[in-house]
């Protein structure tokens, strides 16, 4: 446990002792609200954050891999990984500690969007259900992106490669369920497989959570998927270290 807490604390500190966290927070806060107003927040004449949460899947697709790409790539490039594992820290502990530290930064970014909540409260009488579940869904979605980013970050010492691969992987998962992809796949895949692909899509699950419907299977989907990627991260990292 002390391995986890010490690495977690160190990681969190390193986000704030370098410009990384500040750049991420500012860019995220700017674009998350800018796009919301751009899309007609006022014209909608509705006291809800539907538009605001609707941006999250696309916004996170670039910002989360940008935050995640350094997780292991940098550690391997500077070889500080050799120092890290000469300490009595288990590899899964380190993977989880880094993941949760990065997730905490994203959670902070979401907390800092509270002026949006204040705005809709001031303008009207919002339904609290979709706001709470919107935040929950965003956090789960970001966590899943992050697990994907963390995995690709351990594959290469090069952060750019890690970034590009994780963006692509996230895009695949996000758009798997979109109608155009579904139509295309239905042209040559059996219906059963198309349904499997559809069920892997982030988008429909995120949208149903965001609408205020929290279903166990949607939450479990994100949690399981993120755990799966983190588990793959542990295996891949072990292999990378052994290969020298």
């Amino acid at each position, binding site marked *: 446990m*002390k*391995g986890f*807490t*010490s*690495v977690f*604390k*160190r990681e969190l*500190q*390193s986000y704030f*002792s*370098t410009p990384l966290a500040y750049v991420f927070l500012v860019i995220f806060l700017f674009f998350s609200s800018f796009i919301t107003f751009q899309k007609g927040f006022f014209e909608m004449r509705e006291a809800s954050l539907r538009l605001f949460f609707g941006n999250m899947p696309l916004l996170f697709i670039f910002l989360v891999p940008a935050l995640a790409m350094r997780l292991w790539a940098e550690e391997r490039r*500077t*070889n*500080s*990984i*050799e*120092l890290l*594992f*000469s*300490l*009595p*820290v*288990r590899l899964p502990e380190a993977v989880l500690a880094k993941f949760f530290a990065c997730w905490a930064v994203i959670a902070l970014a979401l907390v800092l969007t509270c002026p949006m909540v204040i705005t809709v409260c001031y303008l009207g009488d919002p339904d609290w259900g979709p706001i709470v579940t919107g935040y929950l869904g965003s956090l789960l979605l970001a966590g899943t992106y992050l697990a994907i980013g963390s995995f690709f970050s351990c594959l290469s010492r090069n952060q750019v490669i890690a970034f590009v691969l994780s963006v692509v992987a996230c895009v695949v998962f996000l758009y798997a369920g979109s109608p155009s992809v579904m139509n295309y796949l239905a042209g040559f895949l059996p219906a059963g497989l198309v349904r499997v692909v559809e069920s892997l899509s982030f988008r429909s699950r995120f949208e149903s959570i965001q609408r205020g419907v929290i279903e166990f299977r949607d939450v479990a989907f994100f949690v399981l998927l993120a755990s799966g990627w983190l588990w793959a991260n542990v295996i891949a990292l072990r292999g990378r*270290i*052994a*290969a*020298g």
Partner: protein
Amino acid sequence: MLEVKGLRKAFGPIVAVDGISFEAARGDVLGFLGPNGAGKTTTMRMLSCFLPPDGGTASVLGYDIMAQSVAVRRSTGYLAENVPAYDEMTTEGFLKFVCAARGINGRKRQQAIDAVAGSCAIADVMHQPIGTLSKGYRRRVGLAQALVHDPPVLILDEPTDGLDPNQKHDVRELIKDLAREKCIVISTHILEEVDAICNRMIIIDRGKIRADSTPEKLREEVNGSLDEVFRKLTVERREVHSEGAAVPGGAG
């Protein structure tokens, strides 16, 4: 305290360490010598539980490096080649992190850090980011990190590389001081260092142990300086080897 049996590691077709075995006890300062690429660093990485070996075993204080790696790492201090560290952290923050990961907290932690700051002469740079330190300071911060939990076994990969002559002298004195209580393995290609601090030396070349003896004995055997011993054991074999390899080409 340290027992190595048939340790082997290959990277693809290149066999970096080819079945080496040796032992070291408390009070030993074991010098690990060899030309560049001989397998010194790979061996040390395996002993510090960073690299898993392909074959063979090693144990530190009776703990197996594979099965009980956390216990091994708890009782080992390791200074890696090129001194990896987190460059954005200050020396103090870095040492605090190392202490926390090793379960040293509170007043004990401050005592431990103060002690290594003195013995490694890094008190002046405690508040400086590690990335801005000179090579000499960086290496001593790495040394401090390896000593901060007062481990019974120390594995130091080129501990004096990049230090000026005075600093080299200080670090050697420190190692000699520590040797009474600990088992220390150092790698180096500076032969005078072996003479200055090691009571045993192992010469390794292309993954195999060529000599395991004391500096005095080796000198007697060759009847010359350590330089000659080193050359005899590593260069001559290489020549024989390359001549052997040249034969089929010549015949063809």
